[in-house]
C-alpha cells in the first residue's frame, strides 16, 4: 500500500516470516458450475517467498481455483486464508487490496491502450495515470529487469513483451503474491528461461508465486513445491527433487502419459500442396509472411514451428484464402492462387482452426448445422444449392458416435459443449469430407489428454490414407511427434528445416527465436 519502495528491512521481515503462516492457504474449496464440479474439496498451502506450482490436465480446475483466490469466482464451499487470516473476496479489487495479483491464461490487455494505461488501469489511485505513474513503471521495470516502455502502444508488442506487461501490471499494484496461469504457453524456451529468471528475482524480493502449468519439465525446473490437481481435486503436494517427470505425469492423469510416438513415414512423392513465393502483407503493407515456399506430399505431415505472432496465423489464413496473398498455390495439380476460400475448400482443403470460437463453430447454432459449416456446398449437406437437413442430421449422428462427441443430442447449440467436445466435432467434420489437405492449427489446444491422443490417432489415420497435413502448433512435443518434416517460421520467413526424428524442443526453440537463421 505504501508509495515508497520496499526497504531492506521489510525484505528482512519477509524472510523472517518464512516460518510463519503460509502466504496462501486454500482449505476444502469446492466450486460447481452447471453440470460440472470444477473444484472438489481442494486444499493447498503456499509458503511465503517460494514458487509453488499447480499442475493438472486441461479442465482439471486449475484456473477456476485461481480465479477463486483472486476474487473472480466465489467458492461454493471451503475457505481461503491469506497470511493466516481468513478472507472472502467478492471481487478482484479486494484480492488486489490484499496483495494478490494474477496473470491470466489469456492476455488481458487492451490493444488500443498504451502499456502505461494497461498497467495503471484499476490502480489509478496509486500514482495517477500520468507522468508519475510512468516514472514508477520505469522504476519497477528496471528493478525487475522487465524491459518495457510505458508510452508504447500495446498492439505493437510481441507476446514476450505482453507477458512482461502482465507481470508489471501485478507488481505495480504492489502484489506480494503472484498467480501466473500458464504463462509459458506462448513463449519459446529461451523466453521461458528469461521469465524464470525474472520469477526467481521476484521470490528473492520476498514475493510468493503460484505457477500454473501442465508442462512438467518447466515445473520441475522452477518450482519449490508442486501440487497436483486431477478432476478438480488435489491429489498431492510434492517437491521437485522427490519426483521425476514421469511420476508427476502419472499423478496428473492417473495413468501413463501418452506421447505422440514417432510413427513410420508414409510420405509419398506425389505433391498435394505446392506453395511458392507466398507473401502476405499486414495493414501497413509490410510483409508478415514473406516469400514462403514448400511442398506437402500425399501422406506427409509438414509441421510449422514458431513463436506465436511470427506469421503462422497469416500463413494458414492465406492458404485457406482468408487473407489476400501474393504467390502461387497448387492443390493436387490445380492452381488455386486468387481463388476464394469456398473454391479452395471445395477443391479439398480441410481446416481445423486455431480459434474454434472465431473460426470453427457457430456457437448459437445446433450441432447439425455446425456439421454443415464449411461443407455447405457438398453432400451430404447440400445438393444443387439446396440444403439437405435430413441427411446432415443423420451424418451428424454418425460423427458424434465415431469421434466420441459427448452431447445429449444434435439440436443443442455448439456453445453448450465443452471445449474438448467442440474440438472433436470439428475434427470429425473436417475429416469426414476426406480432404486432400488438412490445415490443422493447434488441433489439440485446450483438449484433455485422452481426447488429444484420439485426435492424433485420427489425423495419423487420415494421413495414412493419403492426406497431406499442414500442422501448426505451439506444442513442440505434438509437432515432433506428428510431423514428417518441421519448418521453422520466424518473422514471416521459413528460416530452418529440421527432421523431427533428430531434433529436440531446445533446438527448435533456438531456431524459433531466429538464433539459427539459415537460408531455407
Amino acid at each position, binding site marked *: 500500500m505504501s508509495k515508497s519502495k520496499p526497504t531492506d528491512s521489510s525484505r528482512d521481515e519477509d524472510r523472517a516470516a518464512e516460518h510463519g503462516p503460509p502466504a496462501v492457504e486454500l482449505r476444502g474449496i469446492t466450486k460447481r458450475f452447471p453440470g460440472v464440479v470444477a473444484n472438489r474439496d481442494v486444499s493447498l498451502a503456499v509458503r511465503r517467498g517460494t514458487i509453488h506450482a499447480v499442475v493438472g490436465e486441461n479442465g482439471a480446475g486449475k484456473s477456476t481455483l485461481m480465479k477463486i483466490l483472486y476474487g473472480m469466482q466465489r467458492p461454493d464451499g471451503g475457505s481461503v486464508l491469506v497470511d493466516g487470516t481468513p478472507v472472502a473476496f467478492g471481487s478482484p479489487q479486494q484480492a488486489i487490496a490484499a496483495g494478490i495479483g494474477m496473470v491470466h491464461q489469456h492476455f488481458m490487455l487492451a490493444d488500443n491502450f498504451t502499456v502505461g494505461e494497461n498497467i495503471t488501469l484499476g490502480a489509478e489511485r496509486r500514482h495517477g495515470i500520468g507522468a508519475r505513474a510512468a516514472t514508477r513503471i520505469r522504476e519497477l521495470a528496471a528493478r525487475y529487469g522487465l524491459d518495457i516502455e510505458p508510452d508504447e502502444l500495446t498492439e505493437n508488442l510481441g507476446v514476450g513483451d505482453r507477458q512482461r506487461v502482465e507481470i508489471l501490471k501485478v507488481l505495480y499494484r504492489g502484489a506480494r503474491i503472484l498467480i501466473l496461469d500458464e504463462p509459458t504457453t506462448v513463449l519459446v524456451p529461451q523466453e521461458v528461461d528469461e521469465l524464470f529468471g525474472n520469477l526467481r528475482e521476484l521470490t528473492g524480493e520476498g514475493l510468493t508465486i503460484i505457477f500454473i502449468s501442465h508442462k512438467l519439465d518447466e515445473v520441475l525446473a522452477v518450482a519449490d513445491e508442486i501440487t497436483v490437481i486431477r478432476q478438480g481435486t488435489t491429489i498431492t503436494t510434492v517437491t521437485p527433487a522427490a519426483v521425476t517427470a514421469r511420476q508427476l505425469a502419472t499423478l496428473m492423469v492417473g495413468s501413463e502419459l501418452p506421447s505422440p510416438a514417432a510413427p513410420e513415414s508414409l510420405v509419398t512423392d506425389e505433391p498435394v500442396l505446392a506453395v511458392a513465393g507466398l507473401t502476405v502483407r499486414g495493414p501497413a503493407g509490410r510483409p508478415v509472411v514473406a516469400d514462403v515456399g514448400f511442398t506437402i506430399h500425399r501422406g506427409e505431415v509438414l509441421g510449422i514451428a514458431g513463436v506465436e505472432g511470427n506469421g503462422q496465423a497469416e500463413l494458414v489464413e492465406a492458404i485457406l484464402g482468408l487473407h489476400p496473398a501474393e504467390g502461387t498455390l497448387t492443390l493436387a495439380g490445380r492452381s488455386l492462387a486468387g481463388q476464394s476460400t469456398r473454391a479452395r475448400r471445395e477443391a479439398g482443403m480441410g481446416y481445423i482452426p486455431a480459434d474454434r470460437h472465431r473460426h470453427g463453430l457457430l456457437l448459437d447454432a445446433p450441432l447439425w448445422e455446425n456439421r454443415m459449416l464449411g461443407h455447405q456446398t457438398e453432400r451430404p449437406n447440400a445438393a444443387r444449392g439446396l440444403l439437405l437437413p435430413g441427411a446432415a442430421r443423420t451424418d451428424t449422428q454418425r460423427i458424434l458416435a465415431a469421434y466420441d462427441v*459427448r452431447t445429449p443430442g444434435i439440436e443443442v447449440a455448439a456453445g*453448450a459443449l465443452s*471445449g474438448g467436445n467442440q474440438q472433436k466435432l470439428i475434427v470429425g467434420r473436417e475429416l469426414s469430407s476426406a480432404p486432400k489437405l488438412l490445415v490443422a492449427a493447434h488441433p489439440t489446444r485446450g483438449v484433455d489428454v485422452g481426447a488429444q491422443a484420439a485426435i492424433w490417432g485420427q489425423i495419423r489415420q487420415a494421413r495414412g490414407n493419403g492426406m497431406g497435413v499442414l500442422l501448426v502448433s505451439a506444442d513442440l512435443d505434438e509437432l515432433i511427434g506428428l510431423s514428417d518434416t518441421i519448418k521453422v517460421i520466424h518473422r514471416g520467413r521459413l528460416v530452418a528445416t529440421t527432421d523431427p526424428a533428430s531434433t529436440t524442443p531446445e533446438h527448435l526453440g533456438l531456431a524459433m527465436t531466429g538464433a539459427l537463421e539459415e537460408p531455407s
Partner: protein
Amino acid sequence: MRLAGRIDLVGAGTRLLAPVVALLFAFGIFAAVLGVEGTNATDAFSQMFEYAALPDSQVDILNRATFYYLAAVAVAFGFRMGLFNIGVDGQYRLATLMAAALGSASFIGWLPGVLRIILMVIVAMVVGAAWAAIAGLLRATRGVSEVISTIMLNAVAGGLVAFLNTTDHWGTRPEGSNAVSTPLLPKDSWLPNLPLIGGTEAGVFAFSVVAVIVGVGYWFLLERTRFGFDLRATGYSPTVAAASGVDAKRMVVWTMVISGAIAGLVGLPQLFGESHAFTDSVGGIGFTGIAIALLGRSRPVGMALGALLWAFLDRSSLILDLADIPREIVVIMQGSTVLAVVVAYELAKRLSRRMQRRRVGGLVETSQKEQPA
C-alpha cells in the same frame, strides 16, 4: 429420445412464452399510464377490440399488415446476417415513386395493364435494390457502417423524391387541389381489392398475396438454400462464416440488394390498391418494419403476427379519440412492447442456453470420466 433431441421443447417453450410475457408487461404499462390519467384500461382495451372486430377494421388491419410485413421482411433479411438496413424508408419511397411515375407515363401507355403491373413491380424492386446496394457496396469496399449510411441515404432519397415529385418534374396537381402526386395509373393497372371479409365493401389488397409469397420465399431462401445458410452463418459469426468459405463482402452486398428489393415492394400495396399514384404522405413504414422484425425475431410467422399486432394497435387507436383517450398511449404501448419483447427474448435465450449447458454437463458427469474442457 430422438424426438426430444430434434425439437428443443424447453427452448421452444421459453421462446413462445417470452413474447406473451412481454405483451402482458406492455399492457401493464398501458394500464398504468391510463390509470394516471384516470381511465380504465380494460375499458379502453375492450373498446379497441370491439372496434377492431368490425369488418371494415379487419380489412384495414390486413391491409396495413401487408405493407408492414413487407417492410419487416426487408429489415429482417439484413438482421439475419447482422446487417441493419435502416434505409427501408428511403428505398421504398424512391422505388414507389419510380414505379408510379413509370406506370403512369404515357410512353408505355400501350402496354396491357398486367404487363405494366409486372414492369412496375420489377422497377420498384430494382430501384430499391440499387439504392440499398449503395450502402452494401460502401460497407463491403469502404467499411462504412450500414447503420449510418442507410440513415444518410434515407435523407438523400427523401430529397430526391421531394425534388422529383413536384409539378416541375414528375408530379401533377389535380385542379383545385394542393396535393402533389404522380399522375394516376391507368385503370387497367389498378389491382382489385379482394372481398375476403364479408359485411363490408372494402377489400383486402390483392398485393397481400405477394406479401405471403415473400414470406414463404424468405423462409425457403434462409432455411433451405445454401445462400440462406451462408447468410445465417454470417449473422451468427462473420469470422466463422468466412472460414467456412463465405465471401463476407459479397454476402453484404447481396443481402443489401435483396433486402432493398423487398423494401422496394413496401409501397406497392397502397399504390395498386388504394392511392393509384405516388404521394409522399405515407412514410416511416421502414421504422415500423424494424420494430416488427424485432417483435417477430425475424422469423416469417413471428413477423406476420407482429405486423398484425401493430396494425391492430394502429387501427384500433382511431376509436380512442372518439372516447377522448389520448391516442399517443398506443405509441407508448408499441414502444414498450418492442423493448419488453427484445428483453424477454434475450432472457429466454439465456435461460435455454443455461438449461442446455446443464443437460450437457449432466451427461458428462454421469459418464465414466469427467469431460474436461
